[in-house]
């Protein structure tokens, strides 16, 4: 989906703001969200990382930019916990009011009316999988990425859509996030690192001597 999360190359976000001696969590609620993530995974509400990443992509776009990293997690978790029926929005709103919060405050979560159902568990602990077919591309191959936008989860960022690059590495087969996020199977594919010249992404006005690398699944690529 062409969501707000797909932020690579966008202008206007201003300077980077590094902090000295930054703690792991700035506020206690951030660690709360981290714990909720673990519990939701252990309970099978979050079935896989792809599904969780997509839940974050689906939150309110203004909240995405303004609630911070753990605020985005909170929105994603509330989305999945509501979709799974573990909690209801009414329950949560009532509890927010009891705790002195504003029950009218718009939540980041965007639960779907007909959520995806993931009725399988990962066949391995990690995401690496054997793929029977041989890899289509070898290092050195010139490839063009898909140009057409797709609904749902994907790991091909907009800034590299329809661009030509060079395969520099092959990384075996991996679970395909675009289907796994939606409960449509693991469908493992070969994964490649593709190098794009800065000029081919940003034009000649871009910084000189730049190469950007992306790890891309085989179905994103066509031989050039």
């Amino acid at each position: 989906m062409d969501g707000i999360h797909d932020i690579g190359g966008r202008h206007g976000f201003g300077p980077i703001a590094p902090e000295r001696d930054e703690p792991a969590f700035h506020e206690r609620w951030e660690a709360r969200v981290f714990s909720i993530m673990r519990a939701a995974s252990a309970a099978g509400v979050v079935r896989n990382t792809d599904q969780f990443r997509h839940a974050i992509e689906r939150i309110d776009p203004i909240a995405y930019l303004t609630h911070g990293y753990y605020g985005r997690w909170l929105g994603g978790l509330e989305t999945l916990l509501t979709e799974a029926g573990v909690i209801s929005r009414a329950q949560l709103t009532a509890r927010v009011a009891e705790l002195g919060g504003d029950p009218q405050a718009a939540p980041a979560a965007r639960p779907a009316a007909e959520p995806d159902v993931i009725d399988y568990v990962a066949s391995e602990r990690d995401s690496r999988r054997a793929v029977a077919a041989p890899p289509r591309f070898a290092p050195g191959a010139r490839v063009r990425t898909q140009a057409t936008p797709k609904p749902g989860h994907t790991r091909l960022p907009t800034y590299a859509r329809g661009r030509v690059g060079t395969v520099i590495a092959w990384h075996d087969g991996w679970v395909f996030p675009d289907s796994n996020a939606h409960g449509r199977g693991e469908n493992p594919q070969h994964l490649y690192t593709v190098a794009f010249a800065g000029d081919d992404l940003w034009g000649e006005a871009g910084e000189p001597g730049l190469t950007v690398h992306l790890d891309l699944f085989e179905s994103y690529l066509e031989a050039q």
Partner: protein
Amino acid sequence: MSEPSPQAIRAEALESLLIENGLLDAAAVDEVIEHYNERVGPMNGARVVARAWRDPHFKARLLADGTAALNEFEFDTTQTEKLVVVENTDAVHNLVVCTLCSCYPWAVLGLPPKWYKDPAYRSRVVREPRAVLAEFGVELPEQRQIRVWDSSAEVRYMVLPQAPVDAAECSEQELAGRVSRDAMIGVALS
């Protein structure tokens, strides 16, 4: 103490509901805070870098297969993704980012800093890495090639910074103390 943010209240509300229905243990939050503040951080990555600076055979193994090279250490962490280590040289400088979310090599660097997850770094570094580096106080020679690694799948990247000139005379432990987290992301030189 300032007013709690709407997110803080919402997180507390969600936590209390999940404790009531048995999904979450009330002690879990304190455990998480302690674990990530005290036991996990960039020290694993610093040890890897220090060894690579002192031992050319280890360095060769690390660059050939980062995941396998990690098994030479007894790290108290789980690495489920593939680790690729990229080397800075006089010709090449490397930077790591994740534009689509905030993928990061947790096993070697711990939790990512806030700026790594914020929109400014994620949007800019694939397009104007020199401008970003300048904000971190790093100016590179004009002819230096810049390679940005946008972690878009289950491969995680770590930068091997250039070794200090006195690396051969220092112990691995001394060297590890001189490696910054930022250098292993690529926004600092050491």
